[in-house]
């Protein structure tokens, strides 16, 4: 079979890979995009962001309907048809995936389904259904993403032990579900299953859920999750999982005491590992770090100068929008432009309520010894938050006290993920607390909490009791 020449090969068609392929094509490159799965979109579209947010939206209706009874509008108990829920969700994925196919086609990006493997620093072999294809490239971008990590001892080969991949399929609604890991994946999927009616027990080895998040932002999430979940057990280790009839027996240990419980299903959400195996990286000069991620410089270039890596496989926070930004940087770098990675990457957690932050966090400022002033605005003082029945939120600003520049923003509350975009702009633009305080925000909206939070920095927010600014 004849060899294909490409200016750029992108390995992996997730939100990093397809963004890189599309941008490179828009900038005039001849691009081949290789995807191991049979659909474009990667984890984000097929087994991550999109299905989880679809399910969260669908199940949010259940808890809203419950809350509605208190407002004098009561609904009867919902009937849940999980097959229909699944096919609705799959429909969304299918539509978006087809959209990507069309966008690739319009740009002249050649899409190849199959497993790609480097044969050298300038060539790649792809195992497709139609047989092997060989590609000679000038540059390559590795965007193969990550997959859920599951410790060997827990991998019993039982379909009752799930990772996020299986949990998002919702093929059944277990009566009792154990979620191992209180990170964002465990919390988001725990929320979905709790709303669908599962009794969810979540165990976390550390002393808090959402480790790394500022404690004041975690608090509203913890408060609500405690009500919705059967139990949240912190500082708890899972000693053993074993199959017992049609159940999984989990032995957990907290404060020296062991618990043996039976669950219908177990969701393991203890982290994700990079997909670097079997890519033929040993045939290139690409280097991995001690945790198995591909080492890149600030322009996303690997130790092999023709090869770039972006997204989860290149380490750092595992977020689709970070991968997409890195895609742009890698393309600009290989076009010889001056792009470097210096962007503010917002973090969003779709728990209930949502948590989102960007820039410097209070916690990081403390760890790095950066002198900051924190201003917070409680949502209990927001008219809109009360009107939508969600006063359980907080908006906070991390401000550099000398210049009054906003270094970071954090929000916990309903719709926080939509609100944080403004924070990103403020941090990226180097805006001051006064810039924010003096920009009029529409009333009555949740976005007002940002403006009022900036007013809190000066000690005089309209809807909060006056108090001296914290230093």
């Amino acid at each position: 079979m004849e060899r294909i020449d490409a200016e750029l090969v992108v390995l992996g068609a997730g939100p990093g890979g397809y963004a890189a392929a599309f941008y490179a094509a828009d900038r005039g490159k001849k691009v081949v995009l290789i995807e191991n799965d049979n659909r474009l979109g990667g984890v984000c579209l097929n087994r991550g962001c999109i299905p989880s947010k679809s399910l969260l939206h669908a199940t949010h209706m259940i808890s809203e309907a419950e809350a509605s009874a208190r407002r004098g509008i009561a609904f009867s108990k919902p009937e849940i048809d999980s097959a229909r829920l699944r096919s609705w969700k799959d429909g969304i994925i299918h539509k978006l995936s087809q959209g990507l196919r069309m966008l690739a086609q319009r740009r002249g990006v050649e899409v190849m389904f199959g497993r790609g493997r480097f044969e050298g620093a300038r060539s790649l072999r792809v195992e497709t259904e139609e047989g092997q294809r060989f590609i000679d490239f000038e540059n390559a971008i590795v965007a193969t993403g990550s997959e859920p990590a599951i410790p060997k001892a827990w991998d019993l080969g039982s379909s009752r032990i799930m990772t996020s991949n299986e949990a998002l399929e919702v093929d059944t609604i277990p009566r009792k579900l154990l979620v191992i890991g209180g990170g964002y994946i465990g919390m988001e999927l725990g929320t979905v299953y709790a709303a669908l009616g599962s009794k969810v027990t979540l165990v976390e080895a550390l002393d808090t859920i959402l480790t790394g998040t500022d404690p004041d932002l975690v608090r509203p999430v913890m408060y609500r999750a405690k009500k919705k979940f059967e139990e949240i057990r912190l500082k708890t280790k899972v000693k053993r999982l074993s199959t017992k009839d049609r159940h999984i027996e989990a032995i957990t240990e907290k404060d020296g005491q062991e618990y043996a419980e039976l669950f219908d299903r177990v969701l393991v959400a203890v982290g994700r590992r990079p997909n670097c195996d079997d890519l033929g990286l040993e045939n290139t000069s690409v280097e991995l770090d001690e945790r198995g991620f591909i080492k890149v410089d600030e322009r996303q270039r690997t130790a092999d100068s023709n090869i770039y890596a972006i997204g989860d496989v290149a380490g750092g926070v595992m977020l689709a929008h970070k991968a997409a930004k890195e895609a742009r940087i890698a393309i600009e770098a290989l076009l010889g432009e001056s792009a470097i990675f210096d962007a503010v990457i917002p973090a969003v957690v779709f728990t209930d309520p949502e948590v989102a932050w960007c820039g410097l966090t209070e916690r990081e400022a403390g760890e790095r010894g950066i002198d900051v002033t924190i201003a917070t605005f409680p949502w209990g003082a927001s008219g809109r938050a009360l009107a939508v029945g969600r006063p359980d939120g907080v908006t906070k600003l991390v401000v550099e006290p000398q210049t009054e520049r906003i270094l970071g923003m954090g929000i916990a509350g309903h719709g926080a993920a939509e609100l944080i975009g403004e924070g990103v702009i403020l941090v990226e633009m180097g805006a001051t607390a006064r810039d924010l305080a003096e920009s009029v925000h529409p009333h009555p909206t949740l976005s007002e909490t940002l403006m009022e939070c900036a007013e809190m920095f000066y000690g005089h927010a309209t809807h909060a009791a006056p108090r001296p600014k914290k230093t």
Partner: protein
Amino acid sequence: MDIRLPNMGEGAEAGTVASILVKAGDIVEKDQALIELESEKAVISIPSTTAGRVSKIHVRKGDEIRVGAVVVSLDRGEGSSAGGEERTAEPGDEPPKRPTMQGLPKPDAPPSPPPELPEGVRPGASPTIRRMARDLGIDLRRIRGTARGGRIMVADLRDYVARLQQAAGSHATTAPPAAPTPLDTPAIDFSRWGPVRVERATALRKTIASRMADSWRTIPHVAQFGDADITALTALRKQYVPIYKEKNARLTLTPIVLKAVANALARHPVVNSSWDEASGDIVLKDYVHIGLAVDTDAGLIVPVIRDVDRKSVLELAREVEALTERTRRRQISMDETRGGTFTVSNQGGIGGAHFTPIVNKPEAAILGVGRGREMLRKVDGEVRTRIVLPLTVSHDHRIIDGANGVRFLVDLVEIIERFPAEELEIERTKG
């Protein structure tokens, strides 16, 4: 409440505390001067922004402080407005009193650098500005932002570039050819022609690079070549080596050359001088501190031996050995590398002959010593084997003309060739 160093205007961002006008417990009025601050341009008194009792003074005389630093803490007394609210200036407030200037600011003072940001906090600038700066190869940390919170605007970047151009332009008129700036040098991707390895330059390497480039760019160098016949001196040295050894000292050529240089400098004060670039004066020094170029694993370091003219060869031998050793171990302080009036670079231990060393700015001259080697020379009408030491004096032509440079070299050669045995005596006591 804390009284912080306010923005003093005129681009002054920092200064040294010249005097403290209050003490803890003092009752101060609003606008009463608290301290006097000496900045690059003037002495400024810093007024209190409010009335109160001084509870703590946070600065000491001589401290270097920046805008925003806490100067004193005040307890607000009963006399202050009710509520004790503390806030920054609001629109409509009486503008805070500007610090009063005493003395005239220097005209043409260069714009002061922007205030230092905490580690990990980058300058306030939009992504557009950051990209422009990257494209131009400009470090935003060097630019003062004029917008609120010190944010850097397009105009600030444009002003900075204009100043760089102006600076490059004025160089061109005073010191042709124009100084090349990093802006003129396009990035080269060496990996296009084969595999490369990139090492980050150490701080020392960067210092060497910038100092050498500065010396080379600003000093018009002249190099004078000479040879000293050290046959007699070598014999003399060999005779004294065991005597020095008894005193735990190594008598190498270096301390002898240092002594000879000090004696030659005594005859040629202009070689022991500096060109003051700021004032255009020639500064002649009554002391002789000689720098010694030391080759360390990390790169060139030049520690200075003080008062070479007043030390015996024995003292110099000991000091050269100890200082060289400490330098190689990177145990010398910055102070020990400053204040030199002349430098000696002896490469003879490695090899080589004549070479043209670069003057160690702000000194006016440097001596390069090569390896002594046997040569056939005509002495008293007969061809004999002699040991000849190659010497080069590089000097700053702005101060030392060629004739004066070569006179110094001729005298130095003569002093070395006829180095007196008394200078090596160790019983000799010095005053």
